[in-house]
């Protein structure tokens, strides 16, 4: 241990490393490459992971959607092919029967499923946009980002069937002048005036929305379009600790019961589970992280073996020098220590350079993907991983250094001196 903190030891090591600059550099590149690959790969994997996470951050991970289709099995006297219509009453039943449900938001839309979108007029400007009927609870399931000055639909809006709407960014751009403040202004949706209460920032991911969507209170929607208690689909968020897959099954079973659908009918109720998708992507990212770990470690090992190899040759070349040193009084443990330190030192230098270089490349990739569609955010390698990699390298460097070190001391000084 004393050996390690002695300035002279290091001078000796630098001396012998400097002797063979080209070879030392090439050797170091071997390990450098290993740790570089490890850092870049695992950083990139983390970046992808972060990227996915960012895409989904506005939607509750444990959320699901359920909608009604047509039956595919005859049941209870009904023929097959019967269209099913979800009703507002279903929400109440689901809420009481499935305790894992935290939030449930019935939604309905005009313009997505075959029917024409709402035609919207404001002064001389017109456009057609999908119009959604929503409850305020939706914002608990999928975050609604409203620009400052506005708000999303609230309880009062639904209770009093207010004619208010939240518009999308594109809608705002198309219906309003550039620096006009839309909040408080009126637009005409299918010939009914609505007051704009907010502009929604469009976020990708989570369903089929786009940046032109208009949200109005569910209760207003049903009056406007005469949809009664019809519900287009249900957005459901389960509690964090609930198994959303199970919730999905339960919800479908209950809906089948309510609407007299055969329990065997897999097509009557459609559903989509974000948790499952998210888990798949998560698994992919985890796999990538693991892969980068394996590849990185393997490359590091290859590099360290290269260092051992070079040191073996170097010991062979320096047999005579080591003999002289021992004739002058170097003990075997000093010789051994010096060679192991050389090995560890080379490994560490290579490692640190590799980490620095890898970080630069990660930063470069981050900058290059900043404004693109590629889900890639903040690629980082956790410090424990970096420290762990360095630790592994020190251990490997020591182990591999033992081989040439042992070779160096196994030669008797007299034989070493005799060698010409």
């Amino acid at each position, binding site marked *: 241990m004393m050996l390690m903190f002695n300035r*002279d030891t290091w001078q000796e090591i630098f001396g012998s490393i400097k002797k063979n600059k080209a070879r030392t550099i090439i050797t170091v590149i071997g390990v450098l490459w290993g740790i570089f690959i490890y850092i870049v790969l695992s950083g990139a994997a983390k970046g992808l992971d972060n990227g996915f996470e960012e895409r989904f951050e506005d939607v509750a991970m444990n959320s699901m959607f359920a909608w009604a289709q047509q039956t595919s099995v005859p049941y209870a006297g009904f023929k097959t092919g019967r269209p099913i219509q979800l009703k507002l009453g279903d929400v109440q039943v689901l809420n009481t029967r499935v305790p894992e449900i935290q939030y449930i938001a019935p939604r309905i839309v005009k313009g997505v499923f075959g029917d024409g979108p709402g035609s919207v007029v404001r002064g001389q400007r017109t456009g057609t946009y999908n119009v959604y009927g929503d409850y305020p609870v939706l914002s608990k399931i999928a975050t609604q980002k409203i620009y400052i000055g506005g708000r999303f639909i609230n309880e009062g809006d639904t209770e009093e069937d207010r004619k208010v709407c939240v518009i999308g960014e594109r809608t705002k751009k198309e219906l309003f002048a550039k620096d006009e403040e839309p909040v408080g202004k009126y637009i005409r949706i299918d010939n009914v005036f609505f007051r704009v209460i907010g502009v929604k920032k469009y976020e990708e991911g989570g369903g089929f929305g786009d940046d032109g969507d208009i949200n109005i209170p569910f209760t207003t929607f049903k009056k406007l379009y005469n949809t009664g208690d019809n519900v287009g689909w249900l957005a459901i968020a389960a509690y964090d600790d609930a198994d959303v897959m199970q919730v999905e099954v339960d919800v479908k079973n209950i809906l089948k019961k309510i609407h007299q659908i055969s329990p065997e009918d897999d097509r009557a109720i459609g559903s989509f589970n974000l948790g499952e998708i998210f888990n798949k992507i998560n698994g992919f990212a985890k796999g990538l992280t693991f892969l980068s770990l394996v590849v990185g470690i393997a490359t590091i090992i290859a590099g360290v073996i290269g260092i051992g190899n070079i040191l073996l040759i170097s010991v062979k070349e320096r047999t005579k020098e080591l003999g002289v040193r*021992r*004739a*002058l*009084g170097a003990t075997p443990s000093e010789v051994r220590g010096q060679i192991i330190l050389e090995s560890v030192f080379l490994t560490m230098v290579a490692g640190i350079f590799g980490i620095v270089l890898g970080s630069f490349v990660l930063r470069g990739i981050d900058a290059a993907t900043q404004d693109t569609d590629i889900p890639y955010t903040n690629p980082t390698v956790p410090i424990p991983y970096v420290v762990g990699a360095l630790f592994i390298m020190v251990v490997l460097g020591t182990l591999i250094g033992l081989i040439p070190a042992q070779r160096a001391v196994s030669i008797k*000084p007299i034989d070493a001196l005799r060698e010409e």
Partner: protein
Amino acid sequence: MIEIKDLHKSYKVGKSSLHVLKGININIEGGELVAIMGSSGSGKSTLLNILGMLDVADKGSYTLDGVPIKDLDETKAAKYRNKFLGFVFQSFNLINYKTALENVALPLYYQRISRKVRQKTAMEYLEKVGLAEWAVHLPSELSGGQKQRIAIARALAAQPKVLLADEPTGALDSTTSYEVMQLIQEINDEGKTILVVTHETDIANMCKRIVLLKDGVIIEDKKVTQVRASEHV
């Protein structure tokens, strides 16, 4: 200073064994300058190696400055070598990527002497061999004679009890040889015990005592009148 009694050494060569030293008895006092002569195969190098603790005798006793040298492991041998002995080799054996000064300082490094003291001591010895201005030069930039003088400075730096020189002039022309011998004589004049292995009679005659080895035994051990190397230069 050196006491050797009934020293035997044999090497295994294939299945047979080669008896190199067949009972050597010798006493060397402090301050002597002894030439060990003999044709090749006479065992002179083996004897020097055993004296230098680079090799171990099969039988017999070896006492160096009152310390019995026995049961040596490598670590102990290294310490003794460092403390008691200075080596001068035929092929100089300087470390080629270290400067003259660093080479001279090397034995002090293994004595764990601080860097400053080491540099200072090494410089003193370089001055002693007249090569102070070559301190920062690498061995490759020095002539053979200069290299050997650096090697002698290195051997002296640790202030050993005995200087062991294995054919110190073997790789040098005669003029340079005499210069090196002159240095060795001067060091001996200061009281250092020196053993020189050589097969050159003129070099041997520059010592104070000649021990002649043949086939592993001492056949002649005589005191001679020293020829001063300075007369030849």
